[in-house]
């Protein structure tokens, strides 16, 4: 091979490597879904996952949402003043939180908190031979580790998104009524009247998809981690990066699907 073709060869190798990885992740995701519906089931693992992904994420989701909603109200008010549209703060906070910021921020928080913890836990299990031990104990690692976590994330992240939406709107409400002079009753009425069913449905569907992505990325990178502490660290980092990027990409696709027709 001539030196002039080296960059092309490198580009080809990188492209093939990327496509192969996409294929592996897609197969892994499909297998995860198939193991969810096929016995044996591990209800105790599922309940643990529900608790870890859902209940213990509430503080971070709540804090993220309330500050985001509050900042959004301030931004819309100051931006709206430029063309005398300050009155639309309740409506824009509501639509901004429910359609975009609620699901995306909850998804990213779940990627940071849950994906990293799943990847680190499973990767550590791999390097300490706990995954091999599961196999020798006649337990399929995908069924015992992946399926409960993925199912729990699909079910509980929409609930977290719903809670995040409400808390975000309340953040806007607090700033709107305490700082910007909106009447409390009118603020809530405007918020409620402006939201449509499609806004809420899209928010919850996004939550389910983001939960699926976050859990699958954590499990995939954990199961495929390298050796030693460095392998665990790399798996954790890569899982969060991949989950965050995929969540943002999926958000664009879902927004296109729900709101551009």
């Amino acid at each position: 091979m001539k030196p002039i073709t080296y960059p092309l060869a490198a580009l080809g190798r990188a492209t093939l490597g990327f496509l192969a990885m996409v294929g592996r992740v897609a197969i892994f995701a499909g297998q995860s879904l198939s193991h969810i519906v096929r016995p044996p089931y591990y209800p105790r693992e599922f309940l643990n996952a529900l608790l870890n992904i859902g209940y213990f994420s509430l503080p971070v989701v709540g804090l993220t949402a309330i500050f985001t909603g509050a900042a959004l109200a301030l931004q819309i008010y100051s931006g709206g003043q430029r063309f005398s549209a300050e009155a639309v703060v309740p409506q824009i906070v509501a639509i901004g939180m429910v359609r975009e910021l609620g699901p995306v921020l909850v998804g990213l928080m779940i990627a940071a908190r849950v994906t990293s913890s799943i990847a680190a836990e499973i990767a550590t299990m791999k390097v300490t031979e706990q995954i091999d031990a599961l196999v020798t104990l006649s337990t399929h690692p995908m069924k015992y580790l992946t399926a409960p976590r993925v199912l729990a994330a699909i079910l509980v992240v929409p609930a977290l998104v719903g809670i995040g939406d409400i808390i975000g709107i309340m953040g806007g409400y607090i700033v709107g009524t305490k700082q910007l002079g909106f009447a409390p009753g009118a603020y809530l009425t405007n918020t409620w009247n402006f939201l449509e069913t499609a806004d809420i449905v899209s928010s919850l569907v996004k939550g389910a998809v983001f939960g699926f992505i976050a859990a699958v990325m954590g499990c995939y990178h954990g199961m495929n981690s390298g050796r030693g502490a460095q392998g665990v660290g790399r798996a954790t980092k890569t899982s969060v990066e991949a989950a965050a990027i995929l969540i943002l990409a999926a958000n664009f696709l879902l927004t296109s699907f729900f709101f551009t027709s």
Partner: protein
Amino acid sequence: MIELSNVHKGFGPKQVLAGVNLTIPRGESMVVIGGSGTGKSVLLKCILGLMTQDSGTITLDGEDTLKAERDAFLARFGMLFQGGALFDSLPVWQNVAFRLLRGSLARPWPEAREIAVEKLRRVGLTPDVADLFPAELSGGMQKRVGLARAIAAEPEIIFFDEPTTGLDPIMSGVINDLIREIVVEMGATAMTITHDMSSVRVIADKVAMIHGGKVQWTGPVADMDASGDPYLTQFISGSAEGPIEAVR
């Protein structure tokens, strides 16, 4: 009986197993020895199906292990891992009774706990250890818990991967004696991987030495010292001089 015939396994350009032939008769304790990186653990993982050999056949009582029904096949095995491989998130008794709480061997929780406590007692641990988590145990205690888990479902075949690695000589002796007692008591077929010669002398009925991806020598443990095989002699003596290169 476990029979390996011309088993090959490589990783990239490195051929780890290059035609291993080995027979482990039913009810006997075979110890596989060899230097670090000679493929002992790979051999064990190929038998269990944790890795698939590139070529060659492995049979258990005449049945190809690759064609066997996985659950039924694995239900015949118990395994003690090098680092214990205990599940951090479960208390000790649930680790020991893992197989008895799920799948085809599942029993009611109180019964499974009773069996776990009994197995812990068998390996010299008191019942109060049952509710501790693995991280709260010393290395020796973790090995014992791993041993209790390996024998909990009373398997026909037990594998021990480096059972004394990381333990002091006294604890190594205790674990070696326990393994020997348990294997004899249960009448199990055992395969142990080690490079600890004191383990070999206590645990083995037969010894196989792996070198260069093949079985270099195999025979009864009593014949080991007088084998005349230069590789085995060097390994037993721990000498840097001999056919086995000290720098690998």
